[in-house]
């Protein structure tokens, strides 16, 4: 079966460099699937789960955002955070969300960062729950 090359790169290192049969990435406004030979495109990622289908099985990663670029049968995923979904625990995330709820940001800058953290934790939680459900 035809395969495409997947590169997952974070600012720290190249996390994944492998052949894959199909990849589903979370864009800003929904999921998008890639099969080998996809047309060139650049997309903006949103928080969510990336699903990588390989001949040996499938893997799921939580992505926080970033970009995806498809070119010449190479799919580059540039993201700040890529965590295998198995490593996220729903209980920890719920505890974090609760502690965030109690915090009261004062300055506008603090408010921005607080909102962002809440959104991130919620997205992680959603990702874990959806991965467990399927």
């Amino acid at each position: 079966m035809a395969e495409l090359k997947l590169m997952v790169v974070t600012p720290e290192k190249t996390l994944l460099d492998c052949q894959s049969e199909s990849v589903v990435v979370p864009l800003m406004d929904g999921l998008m699937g890639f099969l080998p030979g996809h047309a060139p495109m650049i997309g903006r990622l949103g928080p969510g789960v990336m699903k990588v289908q390989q001949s040996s099985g499938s893997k799921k990663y939580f992505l926080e955002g970033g970009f995806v670029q498809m070119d010449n049968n190479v799919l580059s995923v540039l993201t700040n955070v890529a965590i295998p979904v198995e490593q996220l625990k729903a209980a920890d995330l719920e505890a974090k969300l609760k502690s965030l709820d109690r915090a009261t940001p004062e300055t506008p800058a603090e408010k921005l960062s607080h909102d962002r953290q809440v959104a991130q934790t919620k997205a992680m939680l959603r990702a874990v729950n959806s991965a467990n459900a399927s």
Partner: protein
Amino acid sequence: MANARALDKRRKSIKNIKKITRTMELIATARFKKAMERAMAATDYTQRMAKVVSDLAKAGLDVSHPLLEPRETTKKSAMLVLSSNRGLCGGYNGNVLRLATQRYRELGQIGSVSVDAAGKRAISGFKFRDIPVNRGYLNFDDQPKFSEVDPIAQQFLDLFLTGEIDRLDVVYTKFTSISRQVAVVETLLPLGNLVMGDDGKSNPSRDEGTDAQSIYEFVPSAASILEEVVPTSFKVKLFKCFLDAAVSEQIARMVAMKGATENASDMIKTLSRTYNRARQSQITGEIMEVIGGVEALSS
């Protein structure tokens, strides 16, 4: 002539110091290699990022973003100083601090400056110079993590966007090659250009590609991607500053400890020579005394 026993004692203590500096040199070398590997691994991301940016520019998009616009007046500026947590690394911290103090004075003439410092050395250095430090970070070692830099970067972005600062300068030691690292001041906000090359490969030339149709499809739109590209490229730039500083610190320590070890070897050499001479003259003196005694008895 100096006392032989005192000389011997001194020689022993220098030998001990030499052992310590030698070990520290080896540790710094190992850490340098690790830090270097990390810095190299990070370049992959920046290259791919640069490609996205140049592809965006080829699509004929007008590159404008609040983070790229210089402010008319810079009343409030922020300065982030990257230093090490530990000393014994030669002029590494001194150079950064000197530059930072100079820039602090320059900025202080225009408006208010808030100083953030990473590393114990910078924090204590500013305390000594009576410069108030707004926030101090101690959690950065020889392998800075992106997840640690990200909140700091985000915080500066928020401050800049809400208008609480008009400018951000980062003072750190830039790594140019293994034999050359210089303390520099870089203005990261407003972001001058998007491409993250170290040298001034500024804005990708838009003239060449504007007419040709870009082969890429942008999802959801080129403008939306730009909105994300700009803050990300700032974060990556800041992260690169931290990585550079970490690598430079290890090199500085390696060089300083190498020098110290060599100096210790030289000192041991001269001290051994003086010690031997002192011992010999002591023995000669004792023999002379014995001979003198024998002769006094026989006569």
